[in-house]
C-alpha cells in the first residue's frame, strides 16, 4: 500500500473510531455505575435516529430542534426502560439482568420493525449535507464535491471532525458531572455500594434512572452523528455498532470514560487498517472486533485504562 493510501486509511479509521468512541462512552458509564451490560444501548441509538428522522419529516422541525428533541426522547426512553424492565430485577442475580437486557434489545428491534417497517430509510435529507463534506488535507485543486480546506490530498469528513469534538466535550462534561456535582457523587456512591447509599438517604432509583437517561442521551448523540455519516436507517442498525462500542469500552477499561474514547479510536483504526492491508479479509472484519475482545478479556480484563478490582467475599 502506498503511503498516501495508508494515511488515508488511517484517517478513515479515525473517522469510524470517533463514532465508536462516542457510543462507547455511554456504554461504559452505565456499566461503571451499575455493572450491567446494557445490550439495549445500541437499540436506543437506533431509536434516537428514528426519532430524529420523524421529527424532521413528520413534525417538520428544523434539524437542530429535531436533534435536541430526539436526544431528549432517547433519554426518556432509557429512563423508562430502566423503570419498567431493570428496576424490578435490581435484586435478582446478575444473570437475570443480563438476560433481560438482551430481551429488551430484541424487543426494541422488533418494535422498530413492526412500527417503522424493516426497509432501510434514508437519513440523507434530514441534516444539512454540508456536514458530510470532506476536508481535503493537502494540495488539491479540484472543487468537485463540496467545500474543502486545502492542505494535502487526504480526505476527512467534516462530520468526523465534529464527532471528535463532541466526544471531547462529552469527556469533559462527564468528568465535571461525575466528580464535581452532587448527583455525580451519588452515582459514584451507587457504583460502590447500592444498599449503603440508599441507607444514606439517597434515592437510589432516581440516581440509577438518571444514569440511564444520561447514557441514553449519549447513545442518541452517537446515533445521530452515525446516521449523518452513514445515512441509512434500519431497525438492526444499532446491533453491530453497539457490540463494537462495547468491545471498545472493554478494551479501554470498562468504567473508564477516557478509556472508552481511547478504545473506540484504536478499534476503529485497527479495523479499517486491517481491511486496507488485507482486502480479501474484509469479510472477517466484524470477527476481528470480537477477536480483540477475547484477547483483551484473557490477558487484561480491566482493559487499557481500567483498574483491577478485588472481589470481596
Amino acid at each position, binding site marked *: 500500500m502506498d503511503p498516501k493510501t495508508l494515511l488515508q486509511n488511517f484517517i478513515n479509521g479515525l473517522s469510524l473510531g470517533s463514532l465508536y468512541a462516542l457510543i462507547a462512552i455511554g456504554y461504559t458509564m452505565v456499566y461503571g455505575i451499575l455493572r450491567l451490560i446494557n445490550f439495549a444501548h445500541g437499540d436506543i441509538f437506533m431509536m434516537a435516529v428514528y426519532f430524529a428522522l420523524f421529527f424532521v419529516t413528520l413534525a417538520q422541525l428544523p434539524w437542530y430542534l429535531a436533534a435536541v428533541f430526539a436526544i431528549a426522547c432517547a433519554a426518556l426512553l432509557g429512563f423508562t426502560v430502566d423503570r419498567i424492565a431493570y428496576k424490578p430485577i435490581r435484586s435478582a442475580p446478575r444473570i437475570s439482568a443480563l438476560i433481560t437486557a438482551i430481551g429488551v434489545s430484541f424487543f426494541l428491534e422488533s418494535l422498530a420493525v413492526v412500527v417503522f417497517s424493516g426497509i432501510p430509510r434514508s437519513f440523507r435529507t434530514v441534516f444539512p449535507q454540508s456536514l458530510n463534506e470532506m476536508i481535503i488535507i493537502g494540495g488539491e485543486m479540484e472543487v468537485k464535491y463540496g467545500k474543502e480546506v486545502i492542505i494535502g490530498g487526504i480526505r476527512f469528513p467534516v462530520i468526523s471532525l465534529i464527532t471528535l469534538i463532541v466526544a471531547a466535550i462529552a469527556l469533559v462534561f462527564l468528568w465535571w458531572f461525575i466528580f464535581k456535582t452532587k448527583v455525580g457523587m451519588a452515582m459514584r456512591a451507587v457504583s460502590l455500594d447500592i444498599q449503603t447509599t440508599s441507607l444514606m438517604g439517597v434515592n437510589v432509583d432516581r440516581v440509577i434512572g438518571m444514569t440511564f437517561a444520561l447514557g441514553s442521551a449519549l447513545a442518541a448523540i452517537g446515533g445521530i452523528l452515525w446516521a449523518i455519516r452513514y445515512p441509512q436507517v434500519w431497525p438492526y442498525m444499532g446491533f453491530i455498532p453497539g457490540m463494537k462500542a462495547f468491545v471498545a469500552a472493554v478494551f479501554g477499561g470498562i468504567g473508564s470514560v477516557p478509556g472508552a474514547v481511547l478504545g473506540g479510536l484504536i478499534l476503529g483504526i485497527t479495523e479499517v487498517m486491517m481491511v486496507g492491508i488485507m482486502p480479501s479479509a474484509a469479510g472477517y472484519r466484524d470477527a476481528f472486533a470480537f477477536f480483540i475482545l*477475547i484477547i483483551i478479556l484473557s490477558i487484561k480484563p480491566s482493559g487499557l485504562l481500567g483498574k483491577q478490582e478485588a472481589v470481596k467475599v
Partner: protein
Amino acid sequence: MKQRTKTSLTLIALPLIALLLFLSQELLNSYYSRIITLIGIYGIMAVSLTLVNGISGVFSLGHAGFIALGAYTSALLTLSPKQKEMTFLIEKLIWPLNSIQIPFFWATLIAGLVAAIFAFFIGWPSLRLTGDYFAIATLGFSEIIRIFALNLNSITNGALGLKALPDHTNVWWAWGWLLVTVACVMSLSYSSFGRALRAIREDRVAAQAMGINVFKHQLMAFVVGGFFAGISGSLYGHWLSTIDPRTNTFGILLTFNVLIMIVLGGLGSITGAIIGGALFAFLSEWLRFLEGPMNLFGFKIMGMSGMRMLVFSGLFVIIMIFWPRGLMGRKEFSWEGLVSLFRRGDKR
C-alpha cells in the same frame, strides 16, 4: 413412591410416547409432523443450554456457534461427493472431505464431538472470566465461528452454504437423541457432579471453600452442553435441508430463541426446557396469523410483518420481570408430582 413403581411407570410411559409419535407421523400432514420433529430438536438445544446456563449458572451466549459447528460437520459428512462437487462453486472442497460420505448416525456423533472439542478450547480461556464477561466472550466466539463459516469457502462454501442435505432427520432420530440427551443430563444433574454444579451456581466462593474445583466442573458442563448442541445442530441442519452462515440461521437470533425456550420453561429445569421448546415451536407457527391479512368477522385486517418476534420478545421481557421462574421453576417432572397433582383434589 417406591423406586420400583417409578421405574415401571417410566417403562410404560416410554412406549406410549413412541406410539404417540408414530401416530403423529401417520395422521398429521407433513407440515405438522415436521413440527413435532422440530420440537424434539429444540428440546435437545434447550436441554443442553439448561445444563450450562440453568444448572451450572454459567451464562453462555455462544450456543448458536456449537449448533452451527454440528450442522456443518454433519452436513459435510453426509453429502455425497457428487453433491459436494455441484454445490461448491466458488472453491473446491478440501480433501478428504470431498470424498467422504458416512451414515447419519456417525455423522451426528462426530458433529457432537467436534462441537465438544471446540467447547473445550473456547471454555478453557473463557471460564476464567466472570459472569458478564464470560457471556460476551461466548457471544464473541459464536460470532467468530459464524463469520469464519461465512468466509472459508473451501470448507463451508461460504455464503452459498450447503444445500440439498439428505432428509435424514425424522421424528425417531430427533426424539431418540432427545431421550439420550435427557438421560445424560439428568444423570449428571442428580449425581454429585450435578450437586457440585448447583453449589457453584449458588455461591461460587463457598463452593471453592468446600474444595470443589470450580473451573473443572464448569468446563465439563460446558463441554457436555456443547456436545449435545452439536448433535442438535446436525439434526437441525438435516431438518432444514439447507444451511448457511447468515445471522438469522446460526447467529445470535438462534441463541436468543433457545434462551426464550429455557426461560419460558424455567431456568434450571430439564423438563421445563423441553416444554419451553415445544411451546416455542407451536407459538412460532401459530402466531404467524398475526402477520398476514386476517379475515375477521368478514373484515380484512392487514397483519403486520414482524409481529411474531415482537410478541416473543415482549413475552420474554414480561416473563423475566414477573415470572422469572418460568413454567417449572427449578422443579422437574416426577411421577410423585404428577400423582399429587391429581390427589390434591381429594385433600381439602
